[in-house]
């Protein structure tokens, strides 16, 4: 499957890329976006099965991105998983209500991340 990582931190994008490649998921291409706006454009034009999305980002944040994807019916079969340092229930709940599949809270170990991602993707 193709994956898109949406995070304004290039370091976090690298960490997630590495962890994905080390997981048991069959990952083909990994695309990157540094904010929700870039992510929307990529999602409209490319076949992406999974999106890992940060919450706090400039231009268009993660929650706004999920809401736009849902409201505009963009790539409806794509699974979106929020990856965030903010586990505040209000933000996470809104994202899930808007269509996110689930969330992973930082900090996470590589093993925890792999297990969680594999579990959410299988669900």
């Amino acid at each position, binding site marked *: 499957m193709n994956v898109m990582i949406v995070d304004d*931190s290039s*370091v*976090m994008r690298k960490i997630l890329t590495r962890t994905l490649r080390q997981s048991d998921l069959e990952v083909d291409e990994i695309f990157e976006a540094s904010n929700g706006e870039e992510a929307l454009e990529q999602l409209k034009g490319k076949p992406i099965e999974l999106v890992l999305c940060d919450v*706090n980002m400039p231009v268009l944040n993660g929650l706004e991105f999920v809401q736009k994807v849902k409201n505009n019916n963009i790539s409806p079969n794509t699974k979106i998983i929020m990856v965030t*340092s903010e586990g*505040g229930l209000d933000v996470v709940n809104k994202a899930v209500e808007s269509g996110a599949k689930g969330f992973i809270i930082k900090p996470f170990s590589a093993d925890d991340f792999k297990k969680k991602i594999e579990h959410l993707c299988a669900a």
Partner: protein
Amino acid sequence: MKDILIMLSQTTQEVFRTMMSMEIDIQSETINELTDKIHMSSMITLDGTIKGTLVFHCSNDFAQKITSTLLDDIATGSLQEVEVKDAVSELTNIIAGALKNKVSDIGHTFSLSIPKTLNWQEYLNETKSISRKNIIKFESEEEFFFLELLSEGKKEFKKAS
């Protein structure tokens, strides 16, 4: 205030242990001066029932070490400055987010800004009129770093009423 600092210390240790498999020790809490060599400071503001700024201070060497560990990259010499600043910003962001989750258990809530990382001189210029308080010093394998809680404006760090 003391309970917030204790939570911050615990949170920081957990972040280092989880993300980087690094054990860090608390050298001292609530010191009033930033001693030892600091080259980089990463700031993130808290706005809610707790108002202020969380700052992560470290040397260039420690920043490189953090970046290398996060990226699982042994060749620290090849790290770009922008990459190192980004890593320190992200680490500060994770610590602040973890603190936010922890203090929510005692009824506090706040939003976080996007972190900003400055060199030491830039940081001093931005905060020169603020007296230093609420600093925690940590040690990891003979390297030191600091976390500082600054008040909003120039007042003592305090909870919003």
